[in-house]
């Protein structure tokens, strides 16, 4: 029956003392150490790259969080702002921002004179280079809001122009000014003087975090806040659609679908969708959501839907992989006590697969959060300076941009001040991402277990 011949002594000689390691074991142990070292090196490399990238991002972007402001009293001249003197709002509205510019420039000149700064620049027009073009709009809207201000002298806090700001941030050097037609060395003398006088200050700028985009010529005014809301709503859509749909689709395919050529085809097809360039999803989104279903253009809802389609394969692939890795004995156990297939999946298999699902979600959402190309086609890239939405519906439907699109736009703009803002935007995007991930990572930790 059993083979009765004994092993001929070979076994004994093979094993020596436990503490003295034989050659083969030594070799295996070095292989082991090497293997382990590969792991350490891999992780260290990954983290090193991360650190390098983060360092680059933070050093380039930190400046965006500070901004230079000029505080000046402006005389709101009734002769210019309300010629008829009737304080009729329609008449006041007729004065465009171009009409406000001289008032502001006068005010700045006066402030310069008050500060006792010696300068060859005597004309009020010369002051234009110091302050942001947004000043006129700022004054105009406060006048329209409160026409009673006309005739008074009101203190305003204006943004300094991007060159002045750049000077305080060492971006603009005196040596280069000769070639810069936007600002002259004399302006910088004024800036130094105003700073001493306390009129001009560089402070933390919440408007960068909460504000809206600005046009090319007003880098100092641009903020990422509104596009952050756009991203937020898109992520909501993605999370609430891609996660359930992805998990549901995976459950069907992995647990319920008959295994045949059809489902093979679907499986391959889903992996293949992951390889479809994101811009193609943009083409699809434009055709289906905007031109067929008539959803509004540039809307976060559409963006979210497109990104949902793009994220689905990632979530489906990772979910299926984790469902597959749940041992069949668990399913048997549940079925054995009379649970339905559905119950066994939802009560036992899904919780065990949760870590993988959450990883897929983390990666899918990270990808969705950073994606620009498909947004290009559904109108979310460009200059979209909307205000913060006032509700969920308007958040989903009003035109808006998204953080990566905003960053991408800024990075392209000519004014170097925008370059800094682009990096600043990346910092905020990463904070957004990390916040989002922390939640998922926390959840994932709770589900992790080995059996």
């Amino acid at each position, binding site marked *: 029956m059993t083979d009765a011949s004994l092993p001929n002594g070979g076994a004994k000689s093979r094993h020596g003392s436990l503490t003295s390691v034989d050659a083969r074991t030594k070799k295996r142990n070095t292989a082991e150490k090497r293997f382990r070292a590969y792991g350490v090196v891999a992780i260290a490399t990954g983290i090193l790259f991360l650190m390098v990238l983060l360092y680059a991002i933070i050093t380039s972007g930190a400046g965006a969080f500070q901004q230079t402001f000029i505080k000046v009293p402006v005389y709101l001249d009734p002769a210019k702002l309300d010629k008829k003197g009737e304080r009729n709002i329609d008449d006041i509205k007729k004065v465009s921002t171009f009409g406000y510019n001289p008032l502001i420039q006068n005010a700045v000149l006066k402030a310069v004179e008050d500060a006792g700064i010696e300068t060859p620049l005597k004309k009020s027009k010369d002051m234009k280079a110091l302050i942001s073009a947004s000043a006129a709009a700022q004054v105009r809207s406060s006048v329209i809001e409160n026409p009673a201000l006309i005739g008074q002298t009101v203190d305003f806090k204006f943004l300094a122009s991007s060159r002045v700001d750049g000077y305080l941030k060492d971006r603009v050097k005196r040596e280069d000014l000769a070639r810069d037609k936007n600002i002259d060395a004399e302006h910088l003398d004024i800036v130094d003087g105003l700073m001493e006088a306390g009129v001009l200050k560089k402070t933390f700028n919440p408007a960068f975090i909460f504000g809206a985009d600005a046009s090319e010529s007003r880098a100092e005014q641009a903020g990422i806040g509104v596009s952050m809301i756009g991203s937020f709503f898109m992520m909501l859509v993605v999370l609430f659609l891609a996660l359930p749909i992805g998990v549901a689709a995976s459950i069907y395919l992995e647990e319920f679908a008959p*295994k045949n050529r059809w489902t093979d085809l679907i499986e391959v097809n889903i992996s293949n969708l992951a390889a479809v360039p994101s811009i193609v999803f943009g083409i699809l989104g434009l055709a289906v959501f905007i031109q067929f279903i008539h959803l509004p253009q540039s809307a976060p809802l559409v963006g979210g839907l497109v990104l949902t389609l793009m994220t689905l394969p990632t979530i489906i692939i990772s979910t299926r992989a984790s469902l597959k890795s749940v041992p*069949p*004995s*668990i*399913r*048997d*156990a*549940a*079925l*054995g*006590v*009379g*649970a*339905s*297939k559905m*119950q066994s999946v939802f*009560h*036992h298999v899904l919780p*065990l697969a949760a870590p993988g699902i959450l990883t897929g979600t983390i990666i899918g959402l990270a990808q969705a959060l950073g994606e620009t190309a498909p947004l290009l086609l559904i109108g979310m890239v460009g200059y979209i300076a909307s205000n913060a939405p006032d509700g969920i519906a308007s958040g989903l439907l009003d035109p808006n941009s998204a953080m990566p699109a905003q960053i991408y736009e800024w990075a392209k703009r000519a004014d170097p001040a925008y370059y800094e803002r682009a990096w600043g935007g990346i910092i905020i995007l990463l904070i957004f991402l990390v916040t989002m991930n922390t939640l998922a990572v926390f959840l994932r930790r709770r589900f992790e*277990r080995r*059996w």
Partner: protein
Amino acid sequence: MYDAPNTLGDTVDQTETKISARNVQVFYGDNHAIKDVNVDIENKSVTAFIGPSGCGKSTFLRCINRMNDTIDICRVEGDILLDGEDICDKKVDPVQLRAKVGMVFQKPNPFPKSIYDNVAYGPRIHGLAKNKADLDEIVEKSLRRGAIWNEVKDRLHAPGTGLSGGQQQRLCIARAIATEPEVLLMDEPCSALDPIATAQVEELIDELRHQYALVIVTHSMQQAARVSQKTAFFHLGNLVEYGDTSQIFTNPKDERTESYITGRIG
């Protein structure tokens, strides 16, 4: 103390058929694992399946509550009637079937959940408990009947996977009886148990027999003799002999059966 086969407990008089299998064939891919098995399993009695390892006992057992559905390559042919209804019929809901026909698997497979939740799971999904207290009671009773209550009563909320092999086995028994099935299939329920625990489980089996139909797979001839009223002997996928336990052990008709119980073939 473990001497010649004898039947423990009183005999049950009714001989109503609970399960009857007709021409059952099972294939794993090309492997013909069960060959044309016909058998009638009686209600309110214990039927033992014996036979050498790999002869198809587990496979046949798994047919009775259609657990083989979950194995892709497994194909079952023939009819199995439970209370006269064909369980392979399309109209039969395997879920309901499995609630009726409980199973203890050969390899203990507790859920990676707490001991309490392991046992409470069945009653929960079948709505057997009206409230928490009820459920606690069911859990305790099941664990007691599974002869494991004393060992786990202080750690009901520890994971079921952190139990010893024998404890896991008893937990799985407790889990199966907590759902109060009509038929209980037990695949080597005492393989990892010490004699005392085995005796307790056998006692449980004997107790359950008054209400339910039980089928147990065992490698212990003594156990089969002690607890079962009917015995089926499988060999290489065939049901070689089926009959009263006393008859099989004292007077087997087939010579393979005889060889097996006298320890000559394996």
